[in-house]
Every structure is written in structure tokens, then in C-alpha cells.
């Protein structure tokens, strides 16, 4: 329901704005990300051509999605993997839990995957009575805190070092001996080591699905994906169908853009291709590899005006450079994906009625599109949602009425000029000196800033007098 959804976002945003620790944490991480990306780009003069190539690769794949998906499926099966298709989140959850239950899994390790969050995997595993251990350091932190990720690259970026120390002290047995990062990381390692080795199933996402080899590709900076996917008997990959690329070379072309845009690095520490389960003679590796290809709204996007969003490579640059994200953080968005890309995707996933605030809560400043490595016109797509929201009558009636009345005047120049003349005179009554600091109906403005008090006469009045004077 619209009525219920709107205050929810505003309330979440308000709460976030009132939290100075959150602001500190966001500023540290996004500020760093912004600086590092800028430095990485300065050292990468071919960025624009790489971006054009990345965009072209994604557009090509999106235009021939069925072709490449079939190719991927054929090659993945040939490598010994089992391929499953999930039309929506419920189906994806059901497939993954079924595989886990069939394997009699008690313990599942998971390597960070936004798609896993999108399809609600953590809850599904809990409901099935399966212990889930997040192996990415940041995911480990938010698992201890009982929270969802607040950023697609740094899921725990909303937490300060000091808060993480508290969480580790309470959640680690034994608690870390000191609060310096090295000791804390070591403590997390100790907690996770036994889990890595004893897990029955490892679940990972994929940054790319390589059509001509049937391999899945994951990039991490911690190596936890390798430890998640190798020791357990079963490896499950969940991936959105738009993650497909024609070949390994294409994956690398996109990787160059992804890493620079996300962390400002040139390469991730670990870039791993998984191609089927363990083969006879292999020392290690899973006995079974399952790949779950998830649609969940993506083919719908193929056919509508949000198609360009399928280019997204989930680098997070748009959120790092977004003034709104940097004030309210990821949780306030209320969906799996935050920031500008989330504001386009969440209405696809959750429906526009439940999320109409997101495309609206944007100043349209365009910085997100400026930094997006695959040239997604995010403001244009957000405007697309606003258009739909208007068409479907989801916008609040006060706004519709306000715009409607204003437009009636704006459509009639004479009337408009008269209304402006009266308007500025009325406005003047509410101020003294050069400013208005309170005015009825202007609370949204004057609660926070003063309004310049208009001079008594509009430009048009003064101009016409001048013209008359000139003619006389």
C-alpha cells in the first residue's frame, strides 16, 4: 500500500539521519571509495573506451540472452555441473533448500552474494533448520549483528571499527584479545576455520557466467569464496541470468571496470573460475556442483523501459557517489539493493506500490550516471518509475493536486503572470528584511532554511514597465 510505504521510507531515512555514528561510518567508506576510484581512473586513461566496450558487451548479451544462456547451460552440464532454472525468488529458495536437504546438510557456508539476499536465502536456510555461516568478513559482522547488508560491496560499511569490536567481543568465543584490526581479523579467522572445513554445502554467487566454457566466476579480496566452494561436498552457485558473458575475455573486460569502479583496485586478490565439480583424480573440490539461474523479474525488464538496468555489474559506484545514499545509508532504502541502482531495481522486485518513494527520493543530479562504468542512465530510469507511478495514481493526492493546480496556471501565461504578481506580494507578508523564515505551506523549505523574500514586483511587471517607458 502506498499510504503505508511512504512514511516507512521517510521514517527510516529520518532515523538514519539522526545517527551520527552511521554518518561517520558511511563517510569513511564512501569517501575512501570515491578517492580510490578517482585515482584508479586517473591511472587508466582508456577508461572511456573500456566503458564503451563494457556497455557494448552487456548490450549484446542482453539482446541475445536466450542464446548465451543455452550455450552456458550446455557447457556447464558438459563440465559435470547441474543447472537449475528459477523463475522467481520462491523457486530459487526452494531449489537451494531442496539440494541442501537432499544432501542431509547440517552446516552451510556462504560466500557473499547479493543475489542470495535478493532471493531471501538466509531465511530459507534458517526455516529449513540448516545452520548458515557467512564467510565474508563483512557478512560475518552483519550476521553477528543480525542485519542485512547495507552496501553491495561493503555489506557492513554502516558499522564503525569500534562497533565491530563490540560485536566480536560478544559473538566470538574466545573474544578477540585486542581491538586492532589485525587481531580482530585473526579472531574471525579462528571462528570461521572449523566452519569452512566442516560445511556440507558451500553456496556462492557469481560475478560472471561464462557461456563458452560453462564456468562461473567469482571475485573476492579475502579468498573466502575459494574456501566456501572447495572443501564442502556440494557447491551451489546462485546467479541472476543477466550475469552471462560470451567468453572469459569478456569477463575480464568487465572485471577491469568492475574493480576500478568498486574499490579503486586494478584487480581483485582472488578471481576464481569454477568449472564443474571435482573430476576423477582431482585432489579436492566438491562432488556436486549446482548452478541455479535466477530470473526474478529480469526477463520482465528485458521487455520494458528498464532494460538498460540489466547492464549493471554491481560495482556500487553509484551509491558511493550519491548524495542521498551518503546521508541515509543502505538500510533506509528497505530493499536488497540500495542507492541509485537499488532505487531502479527495488520496484522491479517488490512492486512500485511498495517502493514508490525510492525513485522519488533522488535529486536527479546525475552523478550516479556519470560514474556508472557501463553507462546506465540511472536518472532517466528513475524518471521512468516516477512516470509510471504518476500514471498508476500511486503519487500522493496532495502532490497530484499541487502539480495539477500549478499546471493550470502555467498553461495560461496571462493568468500565470497575474498569479505570480499576487503570489510574491502575499509571500512578502511573511518575511521581514530580506528573508522569510516561516510561511504557511512552505514548511518543507522553511523548517530548515530561510527563503529569500521576493521583491514586490516580478520580473515580468518590471520588464513591461520598462518596455512601456521605452516606447513612450
Amino acid at each position, binding site marked *: 500500500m502506498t499510504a503505508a510505504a511512504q512514511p516507512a521510507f521517510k521514517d527510516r531515512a529520518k532515523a538514519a539521519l539522526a545517527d551520527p555514528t552511521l554518518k561517520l561510518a558511511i563517510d569513511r567508506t564512501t569517501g575512501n571509495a570515491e578517492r580510490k576510484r578517482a585515482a584508479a581512473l586517473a591511472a587508466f586513461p582508456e577508461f572511456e573506451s573500456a566503458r564503451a566496450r563494457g556497455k557494448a558487451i552487456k548490450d549484446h548479451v542482453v539482446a541475445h540472452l536466450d542464446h548465451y544462456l543455452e550455450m552456458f547451460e550446455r557447457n556447464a552440464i558438459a563440465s559435470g555441473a547441474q543447472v537449475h532454472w528459477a523463475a522467481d525468488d520462491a523457486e530459487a529458495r526452494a531449489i537451494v533448500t531442496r539440494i541442501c536437504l537432499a544432501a542431509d546438510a547440517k552446516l552451510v557456508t556462504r560466500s557473499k552474494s547479493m543475489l542470495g539476499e535478493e532471493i531471501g536465502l538466509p531465511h530459507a536456510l534458517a526455516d529449513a533448520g540448516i545452520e548458515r555461516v557467512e564467510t565474508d568478513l563483512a557478512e560475518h559482522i552483519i550476521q553477528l549483528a543480525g542485519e542485512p547488508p547495507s552496501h553491495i560491496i561493503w555489506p557492513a560499511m554502516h558499522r564503525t571499527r569500534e562497533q565491530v569490536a563490540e560485536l566480536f567481543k560478544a559473538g566470538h568465543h574466545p573474544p578477540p584479545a585486542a581491538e586492532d584490526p589485525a587481531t580482530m581479523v585473526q579472531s574471525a579467522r579462528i571462528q570461521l576455520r572449523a566452519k569452512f572445513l566442516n560445511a556440507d554445502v558451500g553456496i556462492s554467487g557469481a560475478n560472471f557466467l561464462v557461456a563458452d566454457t560453462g564456468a562461473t566466476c567469482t571475485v573476492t579480496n579475502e579468498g573466502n569464496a575459494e574456501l566456501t566452494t572447495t572443501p564442502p561436498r556440494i557447491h551451489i552457485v546462485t546467479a541472476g541470468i543477466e550475469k552471462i558473458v560470451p567468453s572469459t575475455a569478456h569477463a575480464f573486460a568487465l572485471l577491469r571496470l568492475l574493480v576500478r569502479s568498486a574499490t579503486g583496485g586494478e584487480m581483485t586478490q582472488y578471481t576464481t573460475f569454477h568449472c564443474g565439480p571435482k573430476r576423477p583424480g582431482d585432489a579436492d573440490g566438491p562432488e556436486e556442483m549446482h548452478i541455479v539461474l535466477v530470473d526474478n523479474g529480469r526477463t520482465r525488464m528485458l521487455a520494458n523501459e528498464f532494460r538498460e538496468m540489466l547492464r549493471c555489474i554491481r560495482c556500487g559506484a553509484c551509491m558511493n557517489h550519491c548524495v*542521498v545514499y551518503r546521508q541515509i545509508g543502505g538500510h533506509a532504502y528497505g530493499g536488497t539493493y540500495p542507492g541509485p541502482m537499488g532505487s531502479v531495481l527495488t520496484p522491479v522486485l517488490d512492486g512500485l506500490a511498495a517502493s514508490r518513494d525510492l525513485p522519488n527520493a533522488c*535529486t536527479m*543530479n546525475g552523478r550516479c550516471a556519470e560514474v556508472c562504468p557501463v553507462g546506465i542512465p540511472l536518472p532517466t530510469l528513475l524518471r521512468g518509475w516516477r512516470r509510471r507511478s504518476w500514471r498508476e495514481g500511486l503519487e500522493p493526492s496532495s502532490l497530484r493536486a499541487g502539480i*495539477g493546480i500549478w499546471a493550470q496556471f502555467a498553461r495560461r501565461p496571462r493568468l500565470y*503572470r497575474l498569479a505570480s504578481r499576487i503570489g*510574491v506580494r502575499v509571500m512578502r507578508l511573511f518575511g521581514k528584511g530580506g528573508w522569510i523564515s516561516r510561511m504557511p505551506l512552505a514548511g518543507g*523549505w522553511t523548517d*530548515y532554511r530561510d527563503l*529569500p523574500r521576493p521583491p514586490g514586483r516580478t520580473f515580468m511587471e*518590471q520588464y513591461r514597465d520598462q518596455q512601456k517607458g521605452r516606447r513612450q
Partner: protein
Amino acid sequence: MTGEPRPRVGLFVTCLVDAIRPQIGFAAIELLQEAGCEVEVPQAQTCCGQPALNSGDDADTVHLARQTIAAFEGYDYVVLPSGSCAATMVHGYPELLAGDPDWAARAHAMAAKTHEITSFLADVMAFAPQGRRCDASATYHDSCSGLRELGIAAQPRALLSHVEGLEMRGLAGNDVCCGFGGTFCVKYSDISNAIANEKAEAVEATGADILLAGDLGCLMNMAGKLNRRGAKTRCFHTIEVLSGRTSGPAIGEEGAP
């Protein structure tokens, strides 16, 4: 410019300039005339339609787009003292009217001759203000639509470099939105406020006497915030400085005409 016909410019004053700060309109006329143009202010103009466009209200935007095109298409150029209204005409109108056989070409023709004023003066007219003086330090905020949709960054700075005595200072985050965003600032006023506060802090940190920008919406937002915070920074539209109006009242100072 003897002999050559002077380009006929239709000035779109923008609704905020009309109501809140008319002198920006007069500064524009003066500079355009100085640059050798013949300037008219068509009386059929109201608003470019941006509030409706950004609210998703296509029907009203289309109406206002047609009305504006009809009022201005007879001029050689359409000039606006606002990057965001100019961007609405340059990009918004052709996109909006693309499927309309009668209007698509007219929207394109109009877009091709529509310019934000500093880019028009610098790029089209190769104009440099003469004999202007302002003994003060100033910093410049790059308003988002002008910057990203029209590439306005070098032009205002180049023009300002001709004002004698004006010391320009860098602004940290000069290309970061000030939180205005049209209706955003009232619909999501809490968030807008937090953004505006950061902008104000950055402006205050420059220690500059004057804050300049090319869009009155952003200027009103920043000026209103700075005043509420008790800052003494004076705020002017770039073209007010270029036309030598800084001895008069800044935004929010009493006595503006």
C-alpha cells in the same frame, strides 16, 4: 558588430527569477545586449515544465513544452539563466515529444538553439565582460544539470576571470549536489537539509565572501541554509557578478529590486 545582423535572442527568464530575483533577468538582458544581441522576453512564457517532468506528469509537461516551443521558435537563440531549465529544453523536450510527428522536429530545432547563458556568452558569442570590478573572494558551485547535462564548467569560470579584483577560491565537492533537486527539497526535506548542511560547511570552509552558481534554485537552497546557519557568505548568480551588480544587495539582503 556593424553591418552584421544582430542575433535575436529570446530570453526565458525562468519562474524563480521572475518571482524571487528579477535582477538576474535584467543582468541577462544587459550582458546579452553587450555581447551584441537583440533581446526580447516573450510574454507567452511561464515555466519550462520541470516540476511536472520530474514528478512523472507527462501530460502537463508536454503541454508546457509545446507552449514554450511555440513562444520561442521564432528566435535565433533561446537563452536561459539556468542550466537545469536549459537542460529540460535541450534534452527533455525532444525526448518527450519524440513520438509526436508534428512536434518532434520542432523540439529538436528548439533544442539546437537553446543555451544556458554563460555557455551562450562564452561559446557562441565569444564574449568577455569589459571593465567589471569586484573586490572580493568568491567560490563557485557547479549546479548539477548544467554541469552534467550541458557540460557547463569552464564557461562561467572563464567569464569570471575577466572580473577585476575577484579572487576565485576552490570549493571542496564543487560538483556535488546541494540537495535542492526541485521538488525533492520539500518532499524529502530531512534528507535535503542534511545535504545542504554539508554544502554550507564546505562553502564556509573556503572563507570566501561570495558564493556563486548558475541556477537560482540551488542558490536559494544554499543561501537559505547559509543564512539559517548564521554564515555571512553573500550569494549571487554568476551573471549578477558579470554584470557588475555586486555592490547591490545579495540574495536575501534587503532592498533587492
